């Protein structure tokens, strides 16, 4: 019997080890997730809880536990690479004398007394930032639960000041290193509460950092913090209007009767709008699906200055009386996205149930119509951004819609492409481009010949390897810049070059940019003396848009099997030029 996600949540929240062990017997996903844990306290008792927390995301946890107290990252393993490193540290384990003896040394009252500790911590942080074999997830830290001597003192060298400074140092390093991520231990401890967490007996007996009754809740928080390893972020949130964006029903109350503003009860809807706006700024697309007529909805947005959102914040607006799942499918088609990329936010029980039964792949984020619980549901982990790279997704899709209009009005495809004034440049991978190259490898599904999810460490090693070429393409047109949108990787083995990866963001499909990138790669290879390039197409459920790319480009089929189609391009016999409607801009 397979457990429903909600049942798993409840089991984790309840934290009963025996119930968890029983549940795990019926719940074993096949895709492994290898995590290596470094720790200063005994958290391995949480293993079955972590297993269940990751199982609900379709991953089977294989945990490796380093030696207790050793925070040095492991040597790289060629045979069994890990998916991520998790670091659990507590300041009282790293700097015990400062915590235990604090208060007995009245002469130590200055903030500079903390400097040796901060320097030591900085040394640890450097060790972690230099390690690039896998993403690293690190907990921040909360005050020790018990009022240990001096913990709550206001002296500038007290443990509470120390903890704030350690967390600040940690956050600054995480913000500037794309490989490092935060596990919000402090926020979790505040949510659960010191009285629930504290168990000094078990801490003294076996360095158990908090009550085992909370292992389930902790594991749930940790797997949420690591969601980018296991689950794709939803791309679009379809939002209802009445009793969702504002209080009241437009069709009955008129716009003047709606509530949204600083005062109760409109303040909760204002909060909802603010949260939606920040999700939009982080790259989530918003769509409005409202059972109202469009002129009334426009009138409401125009006449209510207190609304935080404007209609322009929605990439598409569908106001009509059709069933919402039909409208959602129209939006999916128009944005060229699968319905599995959508989430749905609506106060109506009927609408949510109807959406779930017609399109079960759409994530319904709120469980009930209660406004506060709707606001809280916007913190759903599948809506969170996976990285801190700047996002202009909304603008990109807006420009895409404008291009579609231009395409419809152009007499021929060539005339349309010419009118776009497309420009591009190609550049070898450098350190500044590694995060974007990594993101492209992780996210690109449709135009991706081999779907190899290379990590940052692998990309960096190719950067310095004379037997590898990694090229990125940046493009723009008269509607705006599209940024770095395509990546090609070729590697050489025994004098033969092979196309390891070739991928392009689906939002620039159909402009000939893939031909330009392949032409540049071929020219680079020719200058290196290569005579041919092997290419492979590995079909997946999603990458059919590039199935014909290699033969269309002039690659000839070689031996193939069920899993892959192999090709070869003869470089000397194929002088390659870029499509004429593209304008090359030299790298700056």
């Amino acid at each position, binding site marked *: 019997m397979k457990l429903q996600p909600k049942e798993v949540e409840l089991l984790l929240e309840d934290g*009963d*080890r*025996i119930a968890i*062990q*029983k549940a795990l017997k019926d719940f074993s996903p096949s895709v492994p997730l290898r995590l290596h844990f470094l720790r200063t306290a*005994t958290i*391995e*008792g949480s293993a079955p809880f972590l297993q269940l927390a990751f199982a609900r995301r379709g991953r089977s946890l294989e945990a490796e536990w380093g030696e207790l107290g050793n925070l040095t990252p492991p040597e790289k393993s060629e045979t069994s690479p890990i998916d991520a490193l998790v670091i659990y540290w507590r300041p009282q384990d790293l700097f015990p004398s400062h915590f235990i003896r604090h208060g007995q040394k009245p002469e130590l009252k200055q903030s500079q007394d903390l400097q040796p500790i901060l320097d030591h911590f900085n040394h640890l942080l450097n060790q972690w930032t230099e390690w690039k074999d896998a993403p690293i997830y690190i907990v921040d830290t909360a005050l020790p639960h018990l009022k240990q001597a001096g913990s709550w003192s206001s002296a500038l060298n007290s443990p509470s000041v120390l903890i704030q400074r350690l967390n600040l140092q940690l956050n600054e390093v995480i913000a500037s290193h794309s490989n490092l991520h935060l596990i919000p231990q402090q926020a979790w401890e505040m949510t659960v509460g010191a009285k629930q967490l504290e168990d*000094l*007996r*078990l801490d*003294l*007996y*076996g360095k*158990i950092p908090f*009550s*085992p*009754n909370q292992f389930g809740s902790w594991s749930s928080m940790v797997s949420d913090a690591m969601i980018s390893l296991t689950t794709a972020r939803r791309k679009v949130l379809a939002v209802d209007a009445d009793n969702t964006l504002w209080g009241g029903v437009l069709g009955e109350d008129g716009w003047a009767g709606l509530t949204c503003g600083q005062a109760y009860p409109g303040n909760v809807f204002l909060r909802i709008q603010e949260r939606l706006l920040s999700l939009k700024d982080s790259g989530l697309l918003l769509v409005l699906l409202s059972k109202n007529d469009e002129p009334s909805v426009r009138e409401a947005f125009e006449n209510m200055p207190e609304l935080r959102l404007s209609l322009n914040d929605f990439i598409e607006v569908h106001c009509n009386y059709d069933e919402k799942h039909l409208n959602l499918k129209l939006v999916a088609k128009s944005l060229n996205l699968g319905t599995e990329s959508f989430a749905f936010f609506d106060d109506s029980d009927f609408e949510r149930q109807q959406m779930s039964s017609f399109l079960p792949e759409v994530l319904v984020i709120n469980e009930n119509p209660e406004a506060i619980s709707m606001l809280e549901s916007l913190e759903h982990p599948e809506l969170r951004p996976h990285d801190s790279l700047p996002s202009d997704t909304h603008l990109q899709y807006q420009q895409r819609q404008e291009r579609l209009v231009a395409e419809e009005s152009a007499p021929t495809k060539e005339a349309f492409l010419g009118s776009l004034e497309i420009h591009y440049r190609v550049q070898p991978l450098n350190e500044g481009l590694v995060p974007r190259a990594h993101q492209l490898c992780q996210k690109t599904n449709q135009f991706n010949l081999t779907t190899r999810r290379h990590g940052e460490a692998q990309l960096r090693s190719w950067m310095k390897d004379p037997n590898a070429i990694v090229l990125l393409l940046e493009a723009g047109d008269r509607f705006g810049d599209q940024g770095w949108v395509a990546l090609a990787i070729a590697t050489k083995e025994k004098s033969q070059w092979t196309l390891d990866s070739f991928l392009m963001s689906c939002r620039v499909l159909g402009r000939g940019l893939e031909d330009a990138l392949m032409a540049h790669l071929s020219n680079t290879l020719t200058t290196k003396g290569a005579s041919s390039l092997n290419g492979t197409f590995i079909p997946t459920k999603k990458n059919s848009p590039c199935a014909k790319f290699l033969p269309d480009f002039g690659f000839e089929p070689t031996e193939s099997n069920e899993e892959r189609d192999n090709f070869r391009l003869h470089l000397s016999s194929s002088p390659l030029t870029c499509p004429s409607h593209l304008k090359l801009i030299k790298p700056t």
Partner: protein
Amino acid sequence: MSPREQLYQLMADLFAIDASELSPASSRESIDRWDSMGTIDLVAQLEKTFSVRFDLLEVDQLLTLEIVEKSLVEKGVQF
């Protein structure tokens, strides 16, 4: 279920063995998973199930099922 049956079932579930294999003499030596980590899991589970609390110095004395039962009796659980 009587408290004794409850205790035996708890031990069996926690350490993944059959309840019929357990006796008062079952100990840390005879049960594979009953190591120091297992003791912590056991304490947490006993406290939850029987609404009792073990002292720090008692924890390491829980070496056999007989001792576990005895300390529960001392804490007012009626077997």
